[in-house]
């Protein structure tokens, strides 16, 4: 059953010469040539020759990695194509080394009917440069009341169900969703948040919000809802995916549930893994997101959980916003940062180079980890596999600039920051999806 769609293109022939192939799924970390023929990895070896007519790329000093998968992207289509559409969103994904992205359902209109989903899939077939898939809503119109027709939506191709952007309104809705989704082989993804505790909130509640006078969003607003959802999952023997965990207390609930055999997976974002609420003192609206940047103790706990595998994957929560929406006082700005084009570099700079996370673990959490949750084949640098890979320059130092994005939006939390590591080339579904200017 297909879960992603992209526009057709010529199957790639390419020889990547002398790159360091790091594919933890295949147990590889060594310099290998990679020959791609007709969109598939044909051969790995140490002195491969390019067959006649096949272009050779000098990959010496570069990393060759299985392509990344993003379980949490806001593609803003339909409804806000001024912020992102399937072409720009997937081009941003390609520029970030992604070979599959999954869009959330909180669009306008909400993706809550099979007809709407089928229309999106048609558009992806025409416009998406890397394979794109879609979540459908749990509740109609995200209103938190009536379930969507999950069976029909699954047949139409929904990767899973989520009311992301807001929590599942009631415990009863959590329960019904977990029960009903069993008619399909899909899963429910939850944005955990107790709405009553974040009303008027602007940033993480703590010493920084106290000093700035910004409304607080306490970490318990997340952890209380994580606990509530996990109790229902355990009771119903359901399956759930927890979106963008940000608080150390949430991880404690997650760990307890996993140990008890509850079927739960979880994601964390690059911004929560590399930034804290101290940054918000600048009142830059690009640093306003939900869940908010939290304290160093939370950040450190997230890194540890990603490393151990308690948290299964990295997801960007790529949230494009129009400049006129973000170029306003912090307190009036919408939540969200873009992330597809900076994810790997931010984590490579913030974690791998600082020896907080091995490169192979980062690759696993950005590739095989999310692929398994989505139910798609893991991207792999393996002879015979479809070519879904990216080539990264681990020495490239670049400054994130407003005019440097493939995304239609530039509301990046990393604006003005210097990052190390840049994606040079991305092959998605056997086609060349991205190649940086030399």
């Amino acid at each position, binding site marked *: 059953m297909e879960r992603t769609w992209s526009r057709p293109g010529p199957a790639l022939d390419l020889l990547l010469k002398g790159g360091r192939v790091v594919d933890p799924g295949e147990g590889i970390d060594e310099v290998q040539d990679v020959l791609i023929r007709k969109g598939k990895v044909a051969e790995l070896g140490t002195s491969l020759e390019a067959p006649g007519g096949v272009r050779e790329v000098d990959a010496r000093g570069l990393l060759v990695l299985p392509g990344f998968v993003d379980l949490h992207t806001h593609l803003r289509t339909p409804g806000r194509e001024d912020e992102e559409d399937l072409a720009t969103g997937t081009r941003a994904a390609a520029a970030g080394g992604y070979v599959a992205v999954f869009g959330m359902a909180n669009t306008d209109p909400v993706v809550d009917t099979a007809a709407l989903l089928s229309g999106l899939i048609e558009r992806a077939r025409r416009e998406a440069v890397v394979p794109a898939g879609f979540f459908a809503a749990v509740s109609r119109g995200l209103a938190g009341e009536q379930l969507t027709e999950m069976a029909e939506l699954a047949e139409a191709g929904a990767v899973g169900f989520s009311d992301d952007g807001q929590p599942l309104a009631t415990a009863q809705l959590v329960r019904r969703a977990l029960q009903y989704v069993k008619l399909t082989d899909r899963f429910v993804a939850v944005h955990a948040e107790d709405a009553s505790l974040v009303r008027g909130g*602007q940033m993480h*509640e*703590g*010493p*920084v*919000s*106290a*000093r*700035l*006078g*910004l*409304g*607080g969003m*306490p970490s318990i607003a997340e952890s209380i809802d994580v606990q509530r959802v996990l109790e229902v999952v355990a009771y119903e023997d359901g399956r759930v995916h927890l979106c963008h965990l940000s608080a150390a207390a949430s991880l404690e609930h997650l760990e307890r549930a996993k140990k008890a055999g509850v079927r739960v997976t979880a994601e964390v974002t690059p911004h929560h893994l590399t930034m804290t609420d101290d940054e918000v003192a*600048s*009142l*830059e*609206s690009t640093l306003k997101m939900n869940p908010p940047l939290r304290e160093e103790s939370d950040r450190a706990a997230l890194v540890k959980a990603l490393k151990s595998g308690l948290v299964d994957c990295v997801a960007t929560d790529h949230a494009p916003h129009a400049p*006129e929406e973000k*170029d*306003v*006082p*912090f*307190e*009036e*700005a919408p939540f969200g940062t873009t992330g597809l084009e900076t994810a790997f570099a931010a984590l490579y700079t913030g974690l791998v180079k600082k020896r907080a996370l091995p490169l192979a673990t980062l690759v696993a959490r950005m590739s095989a980890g999310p692929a398994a949750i989505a139910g798609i084949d893991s991207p792999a640098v393996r002879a015979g596999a479809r070519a879904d890979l990216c080539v990264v320059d681990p020495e490239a130092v670049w400054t994130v600039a407003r005019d440097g994005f493939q995304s239609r939006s530039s509301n990046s939390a990393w604006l003005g920051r210097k990052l190390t590591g840049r994606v040079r080339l991305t092959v998605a579904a056997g086609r060349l999806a991205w190649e940086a200017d030399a």
Partner: protein
Amino acid sequence: MAKRDLISMEDLSRDQVELLLDTAESFLPVLERDIKKVPTLRGRTIINLFWEASTRTSSSFDLAAKRLSADTLGLKAKGSAVEKGESLKDTAITLSAYGPDIIVMRHPSAGACQVLSANTEASVINAGDGKHQHPTQCLLDLFSLRQTFGRDLSGMKIWIVGDILHSRVARSDIMGFQMLGMDVTLAAPPTMMPRGIEEMGVSVEYDLGRLKEADVIYLLRIQQERIKAGANFLPSLREYSRLFGITTARLQPHQRVMHPGPINRGVEIGADIADDDENLIAHQVFSGLAVRMAILYRTVVGYSDVSSGGEVL
């Protein structure tokens, strides 16, 4: 030369604060003359943007600018293009076309001054932004304290009592009081005390049991909306008043009371104290004019002539 903004008390060093207060003091004789005007900022343009209701701050900034002979332009959200949906960025660009030297702004949202500053060549003075900062109020409070207790305020104990959570005045005052060496204690019901505020180096109290230790008691206004159903900050104003309201019975003879206004008689402050000449509340209003003259002046000419002792006339 980079423009000088005053958005937060953190934008000022202790020396700059002292210089501002000295400058304000040097303006006092002007305010006692028959002709209360000096030509210091003649030809300069100062715009007052008040996106939120204000009596004291807007009137004293306006008068301060006029006393310094600057040309002033006052705008309120009501009746302006803001009501037609104009963004702050566009307002900033529009007004900048007049080439103002200073834009004074009050705005309901934290972060507004940063947006304004990014879109204008004018210096931005924050006249209150959301619950974030109100640095000019802090400076006039320091001025009143200095005029009352002398130049050295170090070691004095000041209690700030009231809705700390929603108060931009409290946040600026904590920084300013500490900058001049004062010892700051906050007292409020736990619902109105921001979590983590003690990391600013203040003591936190949930009752007035130790109030007698204070030299100065700084009261904050309790707003009606805090008792709205669903907000749940206070069960009633009556109970607040019983637990935290300051009346003569709760005061030691040497203790002085301050309040940024507007006051709620019978809620945070007893009528007996409000009407008592010993409180500093009227002095604070008076200080506002001289201090805002000093702020406007220093924003235009700079803080570099510390050696002159702030003499400006």
